């Protein structure tokens, strides 16, 4: 099945099964992308994993994207699922607001999500509801902010010995 056919097949199945749970879908480079409602994320994942034909049994990676300009949907969570036998790869996305960064945990389906979600909690402060051990992983436990959010500059803003304004973002 080529990417376009995979996109339409899954789109039709999700639309029939979850209705408004699927917001939209498109092809981004070589990846079919499905944008979902947060509430239906785990159910969609469960369906994709347990459906004998699709069988997305492998969670490749997940990550957060911070979009401060996207008011009301400041955080995007991205999940990449993989069916190794048929080599299907898809990407799921949900958006959450910065006032309500609660996302259901994927560890119930994929144990591999454990550390990946801890990493996203560590850097973006996404609260994974139901995660067995949600604490910081790469940064020190005493840290009181989420450093990968866009509002934190990469360097200490009080430094005066460097002037990078010409080349800064």
């Amino acid at each position, binding site marked *: 099945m080529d990417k376009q056919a995979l996109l339409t097949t899954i789109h039709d199945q999700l639309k029939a099964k979850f209705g408004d749970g699927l917001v939209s879908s498109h092809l981004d*480079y070589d990846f079919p992308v499905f944008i979902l409602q947060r509430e239906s994320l785990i159910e969609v994942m469960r369906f994709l994993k347990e459906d004998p034909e699709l069988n997305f049994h492998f969670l490749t990676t997940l990550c957060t994207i911070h979009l401060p300009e996207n008011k009301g949907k400041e955080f995007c969570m991205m999940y*990449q699922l993989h069916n190794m036998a048929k080599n299907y790869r898809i990407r799921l996305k949900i958006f959450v607001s910065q006032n309500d960064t609660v996302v259901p945990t994927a560890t119930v389906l994929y144990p591999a999500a454990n550390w990946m979600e801890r990493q996203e909690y560590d850097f973006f402060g996404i609260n994974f509801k139901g995660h067995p051990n949600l604490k910081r992983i790469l940064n020190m436990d005493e840290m009181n902010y989420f450093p990968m959010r866009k509002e934190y500059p990469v360097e200490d803003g009080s430094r005066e010995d460097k002037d990078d304004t010409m080349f800064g973002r």
Partner: protein
Amino acid sequence: MSKQKQKAIDQDILAVQKPEEKEYSTLNLGPTHPATHGIFQNILKMDGEIIVEAEPTVGYIHRAFEKIAEHKPYNQITPLTDRLNYCSSPINNMGWHMTVEKLIGATIPKRAEYMRVIIMELARISDHIVCNTVIAVDTGAMTGFLYLFQWRELIYEIFEAICGARLTTNIGRIGGMERDFSPVAWAKIDKFLKEFPAALREFDSLVTRNRIFMDRTIKCGPVSAEMALAYGFTGPNLRAAGVDYDVRVANPYSSYGDFDFKIPIGTGGDVFDRYMVRHEEMWESMGIIQQAIKNMPDGPFHGDVPDFYLPPKEEVYNNMEALIYHFKIVMGEMDVPKGEVYHAVEGGNGELGFFLVSDGARTPYRLHFRRPCFIYYQAYPEIVKGGMLSDAILTMSSMNVIAGELDA
């Protein structure tokens, strides 16, 4: 037996404590224990020499590469990728170049792709040399380590002849290779191909069928295929568990589809299988390098991507357009399309993926590394539970956990 003696024995039996009443000792293994080959801390709950629980602490060499990458132009991110899995940095470099090439839609000439394949397979061999010889060292065989490390040294000399650096290579450029292989590099590659097989065979005869080595590694730290998939294993560790997934075959990149090679798989997923999978992969990599050299096409060694590829110096001094491109690349002012790409390569430890979000600016909007070590190391407590401490050390070296890749 006297009644008194029998009573004493009965009391002794009663004295064996139930698990919940037992007193366990806590052992702090690491962060800088010489046997862990890197900065890893494990807090172990021990019952004598048996591990009851393990809690790994990671992040000791976290360097915030994902954050730094959001503030660097694309060509300046390559040196960051060097420092992920520093045992096979060329693979990381190539993975990053290919991700950007996918984003900008560049086509790379065959010759550059074949050159990349040679470099990546050499890097894979050097990565597997480190892992396998260290397994041998941890089982008590120092000799093999010393013999094979000479050849790793030769691989580093090849990298030095190609790009000038040894460990953190920054090899290749977005759009191809920075220069063609020099005659010195070709001579060294030839020497490696001629002489390495004998050394590898010697190592094989020294270690693989050694009784002590087999007794120590077979059935040690086993991982079933189900567990490996659930915990996101990829690479040699997944193949040792019996799943034949290899990115080079599943999603061929850089002309891997042109080569004929086998994917060795194991059955038990134990230390011996992981060792054997890596060992066989070294032979397959040798085969790929030979095929690449034999079928090496002529032509340019870089693609036509003037926005990213530095023009030759004579051009810069004599040609206005080249000077402009040179300035723009050095100052990091290239036009990049908007979009999101994911590209994965088969690294030394598994699927090394780059998820890149571009908003059209000079730096990535978001760059996420899928680091195979980070994902499969979380299964470590589960694997070592109930085993001996010495087996835990061996399991860690056979999983080839690299601190740089673990912490990014």
